[in-house]
């Protein structure tokens, strides 16, 4: 039994409930116990870093300090943005004592930089190991072509994330191969979906996310795999708007990597929460028995 600290983040408690349920189920099957950070707060996301750098470090640092107080050594954040912002606080406080002092002053808590932040792919590939994941596969994803989509926040900026390759990462590819799926080669792996600008510049986000979805379709992917609730929301929810903008109809299912792993582990779809998408995932689930 392995134990790890857990930071769900705001999205996993609202529009990404299926990311939370599939993450919990998959890790339970892999004998990993998740311990949630007590009374965690929002990481501040893009708005905090655009508004004030100290605020952008202090909000995630309160979570790291809470984790420290609870005796955690590692914290896994499934949301790519939460991971990125928690890790930024970890790295910047470790690199600069002056920053660390200011952050402690802002949060009015001790923070000794003893907690290491991980993303979900890191936990699965580097800590648990592909072999252990492969060993749990009961229903291989044979015949499924998946486009692994990493977006920005898992691998960039590299000096913060220190994970995989900034523009050609392969961890998700390896996981999908271990599940028996066919990984399609494509160019949009680490392109930006436009993120929260969907609320301020929707036309730009429809275009950026559209390029990703249309390319997945072009290379014949049955589904796009993601590890980010923001990417999920742009890619899954906006396909109607993409079709309206381009005149080309599109229906590419977008799934969390943990939903795909859960399916391959034989965990029931209802437990994983696989129906919680706008674009139906039925064509994907129908192929697996």
């Amino acid at each position: 039994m392995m134990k790890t600290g857990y930071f769900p983040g705001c999205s996993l408690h609202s529009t990404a409930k299926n990311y939370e349920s599939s993450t919990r189920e998959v890790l339970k099957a892999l004998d990993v116990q998740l311990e949630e950070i007590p009374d965690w707060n929002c990481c501040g996301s893009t708005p905090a870093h655009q508004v004030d750098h100290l605020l952008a470090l202090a909000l995630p640092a309160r979570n790291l300090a809470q984790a420290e107080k609870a005796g955690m050594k590692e914290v896994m954040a499934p949301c790519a943005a939460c991971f990125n912002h928690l890790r930024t606080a970890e790295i910047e406080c470790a690199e600069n004592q002056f920053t660390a002092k200011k952050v402690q002053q802002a949060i009015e808590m001790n923070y000794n930089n003893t907690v290491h932040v991980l993303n979900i792919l890191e936990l699965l590939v580097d800590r648990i190991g592909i072999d252990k994941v492969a060993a749990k596969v009961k229903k291989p994803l044979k015949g499924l072509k998946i486009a692994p989509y990493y977006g920005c926040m898992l691998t960039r900026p590299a000096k913060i994330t220190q994970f995989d390759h900034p523009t050609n990462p392969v961890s998700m590819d390896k996981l999908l191969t271990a599940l028996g799926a066919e990984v399609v080669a494509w160019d949009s792996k680490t392109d930006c979906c436009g993120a929260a600008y969907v609320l301020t510049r929707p036309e730009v986000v429809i275009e950026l996310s559209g390029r990703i979805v249309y390319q997945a379709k072009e290379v014949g992917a049955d589904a796009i795999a993601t590890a980010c609730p923001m990417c999920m929301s742009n890619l899954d929810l906006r396909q109607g708007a993409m079709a309206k903008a381009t005149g080309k109809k599109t229906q590419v299912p977008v799934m969390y990597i943990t939903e795909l792993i859960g399916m391959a582990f034989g965990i029931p779809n209802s437990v994983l929460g696989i129906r919680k998408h706008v674009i139906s995932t039925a064509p994907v689930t129908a192929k697996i028995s």
Partner: protein
Amino acid sequence: MKVVLHGEHSFLEEVEVRSGQKVQECHQCSKCSGGCPFSGVMDYSPNSILEMIVYGMKDQVLPSKSIQMCIQCGTCGAQCPAGFELYEVMNALRAMAKEEGYTSSETKIPKMNKIFLGEVRNSGRMHEVGLIVKNMLSQGELARDVAALIPIGPPMFLNGIMGFGDILPRKIHGQAAVAKIFDNVQKMRGGQG
């Protein structure tokens, strides 16, 4: 070309110190602008911003849309042959613009940021429904934004992406501690919001 600027503390020097990036070493290859997902909607492309810093064009750079639009996706940095992280430059420029009271011609993003952080301050977490509704009412494009929600709202409820439990915000126990972080940061900034 190396430009020598006079004055005690040039704009270039300040940006370089605050960002930790050697702006003068930019080769002007424009790879950053080619990769930037938002350069098409910026007023100055990222490589232009760098050149403008070298030429001391502070009054053009600090109120620009470009510095407000950088989302820190890191695409530019991953492609930069000079090996620097442009987002660090953008962060430094945004902070300088705020400190020196420049108003940006980009208003939509700062509005959304304010609403987002208001939600975090008030409950300790971001409340998605609250953010979407308040943002929609503030952006001045209500008809467009409501029209965009019509096709996705019902399937989101029907398919369980959102439920009734998501309508109201829930405060964390430490909400006051989170609000205090906002106050402390503001005080440490000398009262600037």
